[in-house]
């Protein structure tokens, strides 16, 4: 598999085919005596902005600290959860449990559902 062509920036979907962002970054482990191995997929603004410029990442982090969901750690999904790669990358996880769609949920709760006709998330 070609990492940049077939993995990086691909669409991610969870067990229920819910879109949960894209492969924003990849984490590799380099051992002393072993070949490098891809261990995690990273999802989220922090990784993404870092790819453009550290200054933008810093600014984005500052703004996100003021509004939005209170989570600072980057979302990392172990590679072992990858079920299939193809048009999308399917992960054997529940999107809302990983933190990958925290912003989606936050905007739904705090903004969209407060506007009449926005609908309500059914309770789990």
């Amino acid at each position, binding site marked *: 598999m070609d990492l*940049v*062509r077939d993995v*990086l*920036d*691909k*669409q*991610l979907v969870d067990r229920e085919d*819910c*879109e*949960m*962002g*894209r492969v*924003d970054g990849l984490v590799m482990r380099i051992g002393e005596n072993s070949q490098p191995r891809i261990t995690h997929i990273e999802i989220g603004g922090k990784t*993404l902005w870092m*790819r*453009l410029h550290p200054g933008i990442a810093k600014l984005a982090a500052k703004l996100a600290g003021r509004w939005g969901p209170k989570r600072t750690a980057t979302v990392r999904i172990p590679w072992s959860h990858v079920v299939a790669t193809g*048009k999308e990358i399917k992960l054997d996880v529940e999107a809302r449990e990983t933190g990958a769609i925290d*912003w*989606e*949920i936050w*905007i*739904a709760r705090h*903004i*969209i*559902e407060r*506007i009449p*006709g*926005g*609908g*309500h*998330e059914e309770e789990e």
Partner: protein
Amino acid sequence: MKKFLQIALGIVTSVGGFLEIGSVTTAAQAGASFGYKLLWAILLGTICLIFLVEMSGRFSAVSKHTIVDATRERFGFPFFSIMLMGMVLVAFLVLVAELGGIGLSLQILTGIGFQWWAIPVSFAVWLVMWKGTFGLIENGVSLLGLVTISFVVAALKLHPDWLGVARGLLPGLEGDQKAKYGFIAVSILGASISPYLMYFYSSGAIEDKWDVTYIPINRVIAILGMSFGGLLSMAVLVAAALAIGPNGVDITRFEQAAQIMTSALPKWGFFLFAVSMLVACLGAALEISLAISYFFAQGFGWNWSESLTPSKDARFCFTYTIIILLAAIPLVLRVDPIKVTMISMALTAATLPLAIVPFLFLMNDPIYLGEHRNGWISNSVVGIVILISFVLAVISIPLQIIGG
């Protein structure tokens, strides 16, 4: 029979959705200033658009990817972010122009200034997005848009000189006023070749679940729909040439543009013009708002569909809510929609390479399209028209600015 209906509906919606403030203003401006001489620009733009729309539909039908989705995954985030900024900025200006067009239509109907309409109009557009489904926006609004066929009636009733029309279809250089001629030509190309239409069309193909069997339908719709649409633009130019120009008058006010209809149809013309523009701009405003939201959602991997309840694709809905809200601000501040239109159309032409070059790469990529990838004809036609538009834009925009 079902396929036939699909084709018919596809053509009708393409025709009904073709005209918007950009194509009408630029064509009217061209007719008023230069007679039939700039018809070739509409022809060239329409041919290019036919190819691009056909490609957009084919791309999504075969690869099951939208253009934006594939651009992010093929070219990576840094390139995507540059394209995002360019496309969203230009599309935003076009949205301001369309909302302004609705406002101006209401202004000439009611006498109340467009700046007072900005907020109610934005709210109405937002409400259709919020409550409506993709089918409603694609079919309902475009069907209403068929009222714009009245421009053809107006053009025919003014008895154009067909030989002059035919001569205008061949490109020619204008003796004096070269800068203005070039600038209007660029604006026409920008108004015809709108990238947002490609994003909208390719997302629509995914929303309607197209597959490889849709390739022939897609081709027929693109060719017939866009050709008839182009004819509407030409009708506006021809009617403007006969009703207003060619005497170098600049169309700076909406009422002037209304003469296109009123001289041919004295009784109903004014009303028809206002209603045509209202519906055309409304349709375009909806399509652009959707296209901008698609751009963000697909590029960042959010869930998106115009047919979901808002809370199911919160970030998607949040995007168009903010964008529509922001677009009302310049109008409230009385920024002239006609000026915004001319600038945004020229900017569209100038930024075409940013949108189209990566798209041509995708269209030739066997990973996405396999045997259905582009042939040399499609590549050359689109490549050449984009190059012409870009060169014309780079030369004429600075000249226009210097010349005032």
